[in-house]
């Protein structure tokens, strides 16, 4: 437990990381796995670029090299070593920044409880009070886990400590880059605080957490005083090193912010009270209620990180419906409305002019885009939503000079989407993180919407005619082939569909069938209900036959 000089460390770490990157690049040349990329220089061509909230440019190029953006504009001079990334029909956003994320952070190993453990006077580390634990040390970049976040557009994350107590440790900023690199950006960005305890020891409830905080703060000030006095007069006696108080010194000096996990409005009020009593830089993390507090927050200097998670709507299934009572419906309606309130919270912060960031700490990944859309539907402007994912968080944690927007000199962190971020159809096609490319285009095309396989059966006079229809979406247009048993007796044949019209609820196409004598012109039309088709097959000059088809759940991989 050495005492650290907190002020120098972040910059030292960044310097070290940069050095390592450079050295690393220079040494790795022969690669018998063939994993190493050919060039570190790329350009995105002809894309719709949103370099920061409020600005949008079409047909723009972006050049970046060695993880830094060199140039953005129209008709740029492309360097010869740059690999092209076709940006046509793609929307490029700055990489998203998540200000509260726990993935890949290990639970700290705590010392063993001693034999005569006195639960009323536990050692700080057994009471959940260990602000000196650094999340950087407990963070193990796990490609599989971080990939899940990167896939939805996050390129930088603030890792918060695992640990149940009130001061589990400091937070760390990392870039979700290549797994072989040290992806640390800033160590010890803030001290994490939560109104939580380990249970069974003092502090056990919020009461003692508040009292303990006050004591820790005062004792940190006395600790500083002792250090200062000792420097002037050794006769006082040496300062017994206290790692807990040491870690809190920069907080009391307003240099390292206190990141307080405070979802409920009562917790927010507690955090504000703490700040009133003893001044420090406060950032509220995970806010998901308390619109009434907005005027209060406006008047104070408090960083706000809103919660991306929204409450589940449990009210679609109504409650005990035999309950009678005059106001039953009104009361349940109240509860239903209460579930809708968090959806408009972000828009209220926007209207009050308070900038905010987002955290994914309670979010289910599959809800990310839909939750953003819900917030936009409930009053949040698209610019403010994007700002909360990019420029605002960058500013809040002091990395706005290297991230948060697409501009020369900043880190090459970008999200390339097939459509606007807020559209229903938009999907993440590629993420550039720390200058590395992560291609997710295949995942999109392999989705159900991109390919469909149906098995059909048509009732003809000669018996049942069976086969398959295969549809593939190419460049926004559907193409299809139909397989059938050749009347010539030569086995299964495939024909390309003409005049194909495939919609969610209807299908029509025509194709040619060769018989021994002639070529038949066949047209299939009908209705689609989820994964069932009912319609008719019309052979020109002959009769109509009923056709039924069923969509296959999982298309064969072979058909990609």
């Amino acid at each position, binding site marked *: 437990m050495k005492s650290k000089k907190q002020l120098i460390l972040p910059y030292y770490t960044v310097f070290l990381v940069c050095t390592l990157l450079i050295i690393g690049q220079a040494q790795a040349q022969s690669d018998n796995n063939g994993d190493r990329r050919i060039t570190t220089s790329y350009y995105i061509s002809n894309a719709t670029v949103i370099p920061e909230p409020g600005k949008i440019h079409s047909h723009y190029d972006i050049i970046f090299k060695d993880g830094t953006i060199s140039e953005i504009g129209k008709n740029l001079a492309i360097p010869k070593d740059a690999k092209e990334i076709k940006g046509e029909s793609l929307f490029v956003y700055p990489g998203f920044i998540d200000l509260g994320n726990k993935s890949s952070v290990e639970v700290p190993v705590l010392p063993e409880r001693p034999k005569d453990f006195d639960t009323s006077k536990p050692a700080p580390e057994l009471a959940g009070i260990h602000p000196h634990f650094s999340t950087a040390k407990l963070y193990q970049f796990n490609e599989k886990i971080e990939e899940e976040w990167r896939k939805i557009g996050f390129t930088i994350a603030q890792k918060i400590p695992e640990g149940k107590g009130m001061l589990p440790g400091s937070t760390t900023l990392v870039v979700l880059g290549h797994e072989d690199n040290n992806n640390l950006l800033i160590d010890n960005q803030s001290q994490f605080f939560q109104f939580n305890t380990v249970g069974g*020891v003092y502090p056990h409830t919020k009461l003692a957490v508040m009292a303990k905080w006050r004591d820790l703060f005062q004792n940190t000030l006395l600790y500083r005083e002792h250090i200062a006095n000792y420097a002037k007069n050794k006769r006082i006696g040496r300062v017994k090193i206290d790692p807990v108080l040491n870690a809190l010194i920069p907080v009391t000096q307003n240099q390292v912010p206190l990141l307080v996990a405070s979802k409920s409005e009562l917790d927010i009020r507690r955090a504000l009270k703490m700040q009133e009593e003893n001044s420090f830089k406060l950032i509220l993390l995970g806010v998901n209620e308390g619109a009434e507090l907005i005027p209060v927050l406006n008047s104070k200097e408090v960083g706000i990180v809103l919660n991306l998670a929204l409450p589940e709507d449990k009210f679609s299934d109504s409650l005990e419906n035999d309950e009678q009572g005059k106001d039953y419906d009104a009361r349940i309606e*109240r509860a239903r409305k*209460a579930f809708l309130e968090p959806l408009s919270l972000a828009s209220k912060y926007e209207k009050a002019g308070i900038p905010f960031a987002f955290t994914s700490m309670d979010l289910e990944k599959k809800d990310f885009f839909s939750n953003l859309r819900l917030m936009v539907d409930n009053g949040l402007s698209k610019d403010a939503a994007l700002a909360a994912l990019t420029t605002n968080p960058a500013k809040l944690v002091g990395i706005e000079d290297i991230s948060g927007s697409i501009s020369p000199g900043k880190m090459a962190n970008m999200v390339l989407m097939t459509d606007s971020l807020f559209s229903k159809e938009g999907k993440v096609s590629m993420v550039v993180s720390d200058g590395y490319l992560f291609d997710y285009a295949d995942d999109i095309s392999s989705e159900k919407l991109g390919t469909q396989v149906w098995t059909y059966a048509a009732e003809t006079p000669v018996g049942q005619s069976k086969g398959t229809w295969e549809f593939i979406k190419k460049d926004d247009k559907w193409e299809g082939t139909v397989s059938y048993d050749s009347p010539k007796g030569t086995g299964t044949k495939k024909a390309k569909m003409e005049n194909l019209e495939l919609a969610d609820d209807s299908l029509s196409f025509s194709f040619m069938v060769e018989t021994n004598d002639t070529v038949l012109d066949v047209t299939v039309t009908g209705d689609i209900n989820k994964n069932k088709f009912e319609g008719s097959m019309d052979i020109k000059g002959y009769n109509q036959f009923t056709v039924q088809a069923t969509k296959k759940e999982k298309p064969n991989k072979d058909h990609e």
Partner: protein
Amino acid sequence: MNKKRLLLAGLLIWLSAQVYAQENHSGDLLIKNAQVITITNGSLENTDVLVKKGIITEIGTNLKASKNTKTVDASGQYLMPGIIDAHSHLALEVINEASSPITAEVQMRDVIDPFDISIYRALAGGTTISHAMHGSANVIGGQNVTLKHRYGTRDPNRLIMEEAPRTIKFALGENPTRVHGIGKNLQPRSRMGVEAVIRNGFEEALQYKAAWGKWNLEKQKKEINTAPPKYSSRLQTLVDILEGKIIIHCHSYRADEIYMLIQVCKEYGVDKIVFSHVNEGFKVAPELAKYTMGASVFSDWWAYKFEVYYSTAYNAAILTKNGVVTSINSDSDELIRHLYHEAAKTQRYGGLTDNEALALITINPAKQLGIDKYVGSIEVGKQADLVLFDNHPLSIYAIPQMTWVDGIKYFDRKSDQADQRIKINLKRSPDPFRLSTGSHDCMQDVDMSFTENYHN
């Protein structure tokens, strides 16, 4: 032209000030023709009470008020001071920090829950002030907070009665010995240990006071030669108790432990002490009268634990007749709604007069909480915490009609509606069914096996 503008501006400012005063902090009110039970000056028939900015300004007949003052015709009805509950756990998110036998440093004002529907229900029962206390798991518990039932706010601070002096919770007997001695192998395990823990606390506080006294002198010197002492809000609070800055409210039952604490307090020069529950208080009534600020008791709860087996419902009457400042408390979300009925029971068990019985829920608890300067009776100059009944409050048929705090009406039976919830808590099941006769909340949050912390 300018004069007119000035006048208009002045008028607007004045008007907005009026509206501000009315809506936010205090009210103006005229109650006409009531049977006014003042508590300290007898009962006055057909009397008016005038309130301005939340303070009672006049009591008399044919009083007049300005045109936009709300007027209530209280003919045939009974007006009494708002009821004060000296032992409650209403509106608190957490009740017990049971991890240590002494937790003087924790403050209940940090965990006030303004959304507790019980506040409204207490108002509907005429209770305007409650003493929100730490639980009885610890020998020396946390600092309590006196609340005014200004229901409807989302700001917990608005419920705090800022003028109220500091109070702290002590607890003797079975609760702390079970929680610490039996549950966690920490002293106290017996009533002997309870005394030892209190003495330890006081002695350590004196040492702390001396150490800081020395340090404060040292700091004034040009050259500082010693290291600063550690800061402990726990010990500082104990010092404050010894210096008479905090009133002790001590949960206790048996006569011997009551007597023990009286002795210890005498020794350390502490005279600001009120005993709470004190079921066997009647056995040491003369001692309580001589050395303490009073006793706050149940009307008739007994036999739920061994230490209350030998109780009597005549407790309040015996204490009163022996000159002890006695109040009746609820320690329950349920009882707090009809303290007027609980007080009436002393007429059956001990024959207390109307005024003696009503004093148990008004001026006496006000004295015990140190707020009798402001509330507890209907007198000119006191705050307008009032409740209007349709029958004499000590009758079983009495139903509170309207309740005011600081002259603002917070409850009106005629316009009462279902669903007075301020907030729907999304994490919990919406509006669950709950069968409750109100239990002793004193031991809430004490999880003997101490697994998870999360707010119940």
